[in-house]
Structures are given as C-alpha cells and as structure tokens.
C-alpha cells in the first residue's frame, strides 16, 4: 500500500477540498477536455462543419479524436484526484498534465485556424492555452518550493 495516501477518514476529503480552490482552473480545463471529446463522440457529424476542416485534414476520424480527448480529460481528472488525496504533493503530475493541456488547446486553436474561419474559438481556446501556461507555472513553482524539482 502506498503510505503517502491518507488512511480512510475525513482527512482525505478535507485535503482534496483544501487543494481544490487553487487548482480550480486545472479541474475546469480537465473537464472541458473530457467534455470536448464526449461532444465529438456524439452521433452528430461535427467534422463536416466548415470550421472543422483543419481537424478533418489532420485527424481524419472525429470519433478517434473524441475518444483520445475523453481519455485524456478523464485521466487528468483522475490525476487531480490522486494529487489532491496524497499527503505528499506531487506537482510533477500537474506539470505534465498542464503541459499536455497546453498542447491540446494550442492544437485545437491551430486546428480551427487551419480552416481559415474566424469564429468565437479565437476568443476561447487561446485563453485556455494561456490558463494552462499559468497552471504549468504554478505547478512547477510548487515543485521548486517543495524541492521536488530534479
């Protein structure tokens, strides 16, 4: 058994709640990633829309992309739960997941931009990417502070 995990009791839940506030953006962006994938998995043919031309060219199948995004989003949420429950903080999980999140949102922005269609994506996904940069910085800051840095 992993000794860094708290024994069952209220302490575990209190720790998750205590760490939830400062990591709100990470939770939100993980949920957005998972839901983004889930929307692509809906029966509607999203890739047929003109704004998705870039995604269609790069990824081909919207179901495959949707499944990958759903798995990434859920994995990140699982990582945040584990991270929140552990007694010893594990900032590196958060640095890597925020790095992955940054790549995802930059990728989404790039996918839309390849379609050449200006739409509201321009006001949403680049901001998410910036938030991910902030998350990377904060998680790396925690790593440096807790001497977890290599």
């Amino acid at each position, binding site marked *: 058994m992993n000794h860094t995990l708290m024994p069952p009791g209220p302490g575990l839940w209190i720790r998750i709640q205590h760490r939830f506030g400062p990591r709100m953006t990470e939770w939100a962006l993980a949920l957005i990633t998972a839901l983004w994938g889930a929307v692509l998995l809906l029966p509607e043919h999203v890739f047929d829309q003109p704004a998705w031309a870039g995604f269609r060219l790069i990824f081909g199948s919207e179901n495959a992309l949707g499944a990958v995004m759903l798995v990434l989003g859920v994995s990140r949420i699982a990582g945040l739960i584990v991270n929140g429950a552990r007694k010893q903080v594990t900032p590196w999980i958060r640095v890597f997941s925020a790095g992955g999140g940054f*790549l995802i949102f930059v990728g989404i922005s790039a996918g839309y*931009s390849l379609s050449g269609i200006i739409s509201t994506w321009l006001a949403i996904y680049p901001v998410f990417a910036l938030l991910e940069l902030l998350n*990377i910085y*904060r998680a790396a800051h925690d790593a440096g*502070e807790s001497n977890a840095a290599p």
Partner: protein
Amino acid sequence: MQLPDLSPLPAWAQLVVYGTLGISLAVIIAVARLGILQGQKAAPASNPASAQVAAVIVDPTALNRASEAVEGLTTAVNEATKVGREHARNMERMAEEMDKVREEMRIQREVSRGR
C-alpha cells in the same frame, strides 16, 4: 489511434503544425523552468526570515511565551523606576536635613565664639 498523417496538408500548413508544436514545447519547458526557479527562490528553506515567519505561523507558542516574558519585564522595569524615583526623593530630603544640621552647627559655633 494512429498519429495524424500530415502529408495531405499543404507545405505551409505542415509548417504551421510543426512550428506550433515546436514553439509550444519550448514555451512549456521555459515556463516550467521559470516556475521551478521562482519556487526554489520562494522556498522557506532558502529564506531564513520567511522560515521564521512560517515557523511562528505554524506554532505561535514561543511567540506567546516571549510576549508574556516581555510583559513581566515591563512590570519589573516600571517597579524599578518607581523605587528609583522614591530613593532620589529620600536622598533629597536627607540632604536638606543635613544642610539644616550643618547650619545649626554653624550657629552653635558662632554663639560659642561670642561668649
């Protein structure tokens, strides 16, 4: 899922994708590095003053004890000041009395000379 095949894309689009990926990875590494450095600077162990402040926040018992000691010391100093002031007043009174005795003796000497 297979890795995306970028060959059907025009050259400029491939350049955009690879360029974006490269720049993004560089930005991630730079931001993470900056975060680690700033975190190490902010670590309590690297700053004795912050470490002391953190220690006091975590356990203020020592600070409370020191406050009580300072309070006791202040009472003692006030008491000592009062005693010192009283002592000075008594000394002044004694000096006045001695002056009176000296004057009395001088008068006595003059009277005995006149006889």
